[in-house]
């Protein structure tokens, strides 16, 4: 009898403690992620003098001195252009190869399908630094070194598994009967895809494209190893920021992080879908 009473008292207390633990963990994780971003933004939006000053202001002064200095810094514009070019190429290549693979995975049964899906993921387990040296040698031999397309190929390798998996879950979510109905109504396989599947999948494909863009945009290692003249923004910043002043680092960091954050935020729904988590 007494044990029952104890249990019934202990249960809500244990739940309360659990709740506190949950809340504390959530706050810790938020701080972990948000604090660097906050500091980055505050400092990027402060004047160069304020960045090095102490104590810090809680709200930025919205002084664009640091940012305008960064934009006008020699080489930034070209690096920015290179980043956009490589990221766009990566986006086109990974959707061009990834979407058909995702479609095939969702619609056809073929031997080795599970192995293929597994291998797609395994490509991510292969460390890039291990590949960098042979890749650089090979690129120099074929003349792909220091070109946008060469770097885009490497970035495509990184982005492709995600493109395949996102589009796979996307196409799997579209009932096959819609396609079959289109066939019985006079469509060829290609027409059915274009008229029925593509309009339904387009938002998701766009999301997957944006994600590939972001992967390329953020990638620094391959970019630093494989380019010299035509540096992307990440590689450029890595190279030149070592000796540049603090406020320039913050402005450069913000210029990299904020577009990536906005892109990922815009496509978050589809990234959840990739891992099979139902959104909403």
């Amino acid at each position, binding site marked *: 009898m007494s044990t029952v009473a104890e249990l019934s008292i202990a249960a809500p207390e244990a739940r309360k403690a659990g709740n506190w633990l949950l809340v504390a963990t959530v706050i810790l994780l938020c701080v972990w992620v948000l604090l660097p971003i906050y500091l980055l933004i505050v400092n990027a939006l402060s004047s160069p003098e304020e960045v090095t000053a102490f104590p810090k202001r809680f709200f930025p002064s919205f002084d664009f001195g640091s940012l305008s200095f960064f934009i006008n810094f020699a080489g930034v514009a070209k690096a920015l252009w290179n980043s956009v070019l490589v990221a766009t190429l990566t986006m086109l290549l990974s959707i061009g190869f990834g979407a058909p693979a995702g479609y095939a995975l969702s619609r056809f049964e073929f031997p080795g399908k599970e192995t293929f899906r597994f291998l797609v993921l395994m490509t991510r387990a292969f460390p890039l630094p291990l590949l960098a040296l042979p890749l650089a040698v090979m690129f120099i031999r074929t003349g792909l070194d220091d070109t946008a397309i060469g770097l885009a190929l490497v970035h495509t390798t990184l982005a492709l598994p995600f493109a395949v998996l996102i589009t796979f879950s996307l196409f799997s979510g579209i009932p096959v009967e819609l396609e079959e109905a289109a066939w*019985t109504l006079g469509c*060829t396989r290609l027409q059915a895809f274009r008229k029925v599947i593509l309009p339904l999948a387009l938002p998701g494909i766009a999301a997957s494209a944006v994600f590939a863009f972001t992967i390329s945009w953020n990638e620094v290692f391959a970019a630093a190893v494989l380019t010299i003249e035509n540096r992307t923004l990440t590689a450029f910043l890595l190279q030149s920021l070592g000796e540049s002043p603090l406020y320039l680092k913050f402005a450069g960091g913000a210029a990299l992080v904020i577009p990536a954050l906005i892109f990922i935020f815009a496509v978050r729904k589809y990234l959840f879908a990739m891992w099979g988590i139902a959104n909403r």
Partner: protein
Amino acid sequence: MAEIVIKQVAKRFGGFTALHSIDLTIADQEFMVLLGASGCGKTTLLRIVAGLETPSQGEVWIGGRRVDHLPPRERGIAMVFQNYAVFPHLTVFENIAFGLRMKKLPQQEVDGRVNRTAELMHIEQLLKRYSGQLSGGQRQRVAVARALAMEPDVILMDEPLSNLDALLRLEMRAELKGVLAASKTTTIYVTHDQVEAMSLADRIAVMHQGRIVQAASPVEVYRNPAARFVGSFIGNPPMNFIPATKTADGSWTVAGLTLPGPKSDKQTIEFAIRPEDVDAGNEGINATVRVVEPLGPHTLVTCDVEGGLFRAILESNATVAVGDHLRLSPKPDRVRWFDPETTNAL
């Protein structure tokens, strides 16, 4: 004019045989229902006719043309799917017009046909809506209208009513029958619902484990099941079966009652009778009443006969109580006999 001929069609998925050499001819403008429990191969057969599945062997002919190697769009068919498959990114109008646009019909003709079929299916006020704004029943109507607008030779329907609620199903059933009869198309209709099959079909093909057990008119399938499975699957409650032992040539003893029957060299065969085809009287099969269910128009009585269950439908004014001993006499012209080994009718 579209007669459908299915010749020795078989389908294997790996080691599993979904269809064993099916032969079936469906006459022009006939309403053929494929009836069977889930997994019997009825949907697979329909999809083979549609061209959505390739047969492992055999031929499919539609309107005198061999079609088993043609894609669905070249077969002159239209199909209605179980989950309707109404395109969510198009309006109802564009859904119905979809196939017509693929045929590159002039706009005027498209408008005419869409409005005509929409009117026929009572969805003319929904033409501007999207599928997300429709109820299940309305989506079903759009799917049927889309198929009809194609003016196909053959309409294939895969359990089109099974996702609707009971009342709507009843209403749509009657409507479909009228609309399809007027459209003069040949129809293959797949269902697991025997009432739907009985009420719609010109002919029912009862399927079991990848074979067609019987293909005949609804009344014939009900009255003269070709195999034990048909008798036990069709009818609610199903047929009663009692073992019969030979007493003399062409004479059999069934639960204490001696009846004239087929000549056979077997010592035991099976006696079968529908629940409504027995009368309670002074002589007949010995039965002990277990459950009495008054259903209004009649009373369903479940009895024990020789250790097995036996259901009888009696007049509702019959006074029967649990534990009563009844003598049930089968109507002689309604008695059927089955071979216990082949399960075929004798």
